[in-house]
């Protein structure tokens, strides 16, 4: 979800450089944390309480981000194999194995700097059961403190006051005291409010950028480009002025592209004519990210909306972090993450995306080692096809296990899908 490239030179805009600085800065802080006497918290992207952790001066480490960064850098395959050698099965989430494998190899992070032992593992449980097991394994390794926030699943598709109160109560009575104890820093709610002001500003700009894809041509790719755009807001930077600044810059750049009638920028340069507009469900593949993206952009396919860019928060239906109700809004944020939504809500969301973004259809990238995302995806596909009348398609890859990316197979499916859309269009025109 962050900038990372290998191989040929990539065109970079200001926002990209800013993001790169943010990421490199955070890895450097992690490497120095303990010698500087700072405490480290590890936490996951969905439902992350970054602003809260900042209130206790924790340096934030996000294991999924490490795994995907290692995937982008072609390092994850060896890590996955290392974890399998230690007894983890082939079907286990590849993020988990890449993380454990990295630890077994000496815990050197994606940028080549050592990652510190965490002082606390903060699990905000938002729908992915594997996260819990993952932290159990990490805890066993480091014998460190853990704090778990139990976020109720949106089984009925709504957030009730009860659910919100339940989360707030845990934050107040359990999480904050634990974080105070581990960090030695007293909680200051006004400090939290200040961060949330920044978060809300960044979220406004992020939503503006993502919704710019409603234009034709879309100035952005909301999946392959989108994973970069969500980077700061979904990870260790939400709530910082630097992240707010990043989003202001990004918004300006996208506004310029829009005004100039330009399409998205890709690692291979400006994209050509927009021929297909797609909504994509599911995480991307990281080990062959550029190759995968190329299969889209060289056919003129732009992703105009995606659900993966909502895993660290669904902001495009109005939710913002709210400094006037800080703890309540943290609770609502966790409850509203994409991974915590039930299938009917996801179907509604996808249908709405296909319609609002005038997409040609829904494409699902089903992740081999992620059951929590994949369960029910075919039902989603059928449902959205029926409701929109637009054709759907299904490809299968993996997050960071390179063995599960079969380029020929994926390309055949994608090309078939694009040609299927063209054929339908031609007939419609005739």
């Amino acid at each position, binding site marked *: 979800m962050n900038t990372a490239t290998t191989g040929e030179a990539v065109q970079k805009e200001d926002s990209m450089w800013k993001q790169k600085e943010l990421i490199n800065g955070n890895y450097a802080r992690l490497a120095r944390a303990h010698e500087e006497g700072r405490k480290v918290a590890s936490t996951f992207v969905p439902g992350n309480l970054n602003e809260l952790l900042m209130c206790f001066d924790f340096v934030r480490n996000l294991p999924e981000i490490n795994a995907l960064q290692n995937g982008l850098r072609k390092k994850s395959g060896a890590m996955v194999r290392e974890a399998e050698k230690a007894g983890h099965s082939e079907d286990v989430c590849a993020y988990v194995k890449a993380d454990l494998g990295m630890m077994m190899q000496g815990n050197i992070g994606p940028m080549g700097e050592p990652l510190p032992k965490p002082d606390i593992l903060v699990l905000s449980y938002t729908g992915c059961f594997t996260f819990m097991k993952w932290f159990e394994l990490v805890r066993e390794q480091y014998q460190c403190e853990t704090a778990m926030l139990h976020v109720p699943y949106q089984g009925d598709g709504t957030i009730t006051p009860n659910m919100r109160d339940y989360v707030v109560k845990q934050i107040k009575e359990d999480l904050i005291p634990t974080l105070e104890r581990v960090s030695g820093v007293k909680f200051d709610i006004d400090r939290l409010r200040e961060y949330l002001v920044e978060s809300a500003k960044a979220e406004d700009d992020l939503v503006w950028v993502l919704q710019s894809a409603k234009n034709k041509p879309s100035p952005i790719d909301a999946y392959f480009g989108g994973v970069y755009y969500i980077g700061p807001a979904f990870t260790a930077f939400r709530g910082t002025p630097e992240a707010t600044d990043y989003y202001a810059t990004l918004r300006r750049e996208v506004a310029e592209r829009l005004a100039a009638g330009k399409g998205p920028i890709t690692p291979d340069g400006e994209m050509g004519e927009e021929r297909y507009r797609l909504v994509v469900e599911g995480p991307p593949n990281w080990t062959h990210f550029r190759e995968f993206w190329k299969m889209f952009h060289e056919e003129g396919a732009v992703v105009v909306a995606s659900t993966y860019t909502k895993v660290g928060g669904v902001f495009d239906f109005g939710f913002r972090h709210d400094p006037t109700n800080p703890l309540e809004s943290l609770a609502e944020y966790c409850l509203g993450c994409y991974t915590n939504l039930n299938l009917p809500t996801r179907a509604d969301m996808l249908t709405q995306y296909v319609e609002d973004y005038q997409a040609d259809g829904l494409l699902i990238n089903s992740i081999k080692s992620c059951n929590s995302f994949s369960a029910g995806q075919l039902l989603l596909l059928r449902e959205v096809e029926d409701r929109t009348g637009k054709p*759907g398609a299904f490809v*299968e890859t993996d997050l960071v296990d390179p063995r599960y990316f079969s380029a020929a197979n994926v390309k055949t499916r994608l090309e078939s899908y694009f*040609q299927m859309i063209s054929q339908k269009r031609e007939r419609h025109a005739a």
Partner: protein
Amino acid sequence: MKCFIGIDLGSTTTKALLMDADSKVLGRGITNSRSNYDIATTVAKREAFADARFNLFRASLSSVEALDGRLDEFLASLERNFRLEQYLEQLADLEATCKNHAADPRFSGQTQLVGEVLDQLFDQLHAEAPEYFAPGAKRKSDFFRDVAGSRYLAVGEAVAKEEGLAFDVLLNIYDRSIIEVENRTGDSDTSGKVLGALDRTFESAGNGLGAAAAEVRGHIGEALQIELEETYVVGTGYGRARLPFSKEHIRSEILCHGLGAHVMYDGTRTVLDIGGQDTKAIQIDADGIVENFQMNDRCAAGCGRYLGYIADEMNVGVHELGPIASKATRTVRINSTCTVFAGAELRDRLSLGEKREDILAGLHRAIILRALSLLSRSGGVRDQFTFTGGVANNEAAVRALETLVRENYGDVAINIDPESIYTGALGAATFALRAGEA
């Protein structure tokens, strides 16, 4: 005459199909894909053009009275002789290539012996060649590699033994040479070979055509003069990116199979294609336009290759599997469709005393179950259902499919075209026709 051409580059075979402006199929050609798609494309296309010529001969010769009631026989003889001419051309190439390799310094000291053995070997292969193409002769396959290879090895072994040469030497020379020969397209002079075949046919038949021979020759000559123009080519299949033409000339195999099945049976709504390395379940509408599809993922379980693997494990030809399985009296339940585990499962069952045919029936059922899962994911089986690909020629697979489709989807018309291996090429040719007319 305008020809619209579809080419389907498969993992095992490459198919070409020629169509005229009225959507009539003019000819079909097939060759093994080798590892060289350019060659495979050239050869398959040439085969399809040759097939088209034979269809033109048929049309033209139907007016020859002397051939009344025996036209089929005459054309079959002409075609066999044509195949023989092709074979001899490649055999001469193989001989020259082998002799060239025999000069390699690694054989110094026995260069002369190797040369003599090769002379004897190829003399015999040339001499016996007409037998392979005699009426009623059975060939395991029509591909040069298969026909010449099996004879080279058999004859070579005997000659080498007699002359006191290590058989390995011959093997080594063959392995190097066959790859080179297969990667050359050879002489493209179809007319010359047809005329050569015609001479052979007249000679061998003693056919009493008498004065009509000249008439026949005239018709053939005229038919050979008809220009078959390569108007528009569309390619599909896994090697499509390697085709020597631009993107507009390439269609996905899913679209081609969908359209091909529609052209074969216009009532088709669901298509199942089981090829060498992939299985496709496709839903199409009344116009043959794809509505939905599912493909097997990174694993070849449940594909044609699985059967190939089983055949290797059992030491039988892949074409023998269906007939053996058809003798089953019960179906052994096979749990794993993993290609790699299949061998273990097979041996395990044999050791438990299960009969070979019963196990094979179970393996066929397992493959079809896997295909059924893809079908259900693509939207199920709708009437009519068309089954295509190499596995559609396997009677045991077809029987398992019929049973399982009936159990799960009730009465559905199941279509299997004898030329189903050309479904993708037919779809591609139809796309070529549409694009060429546009």
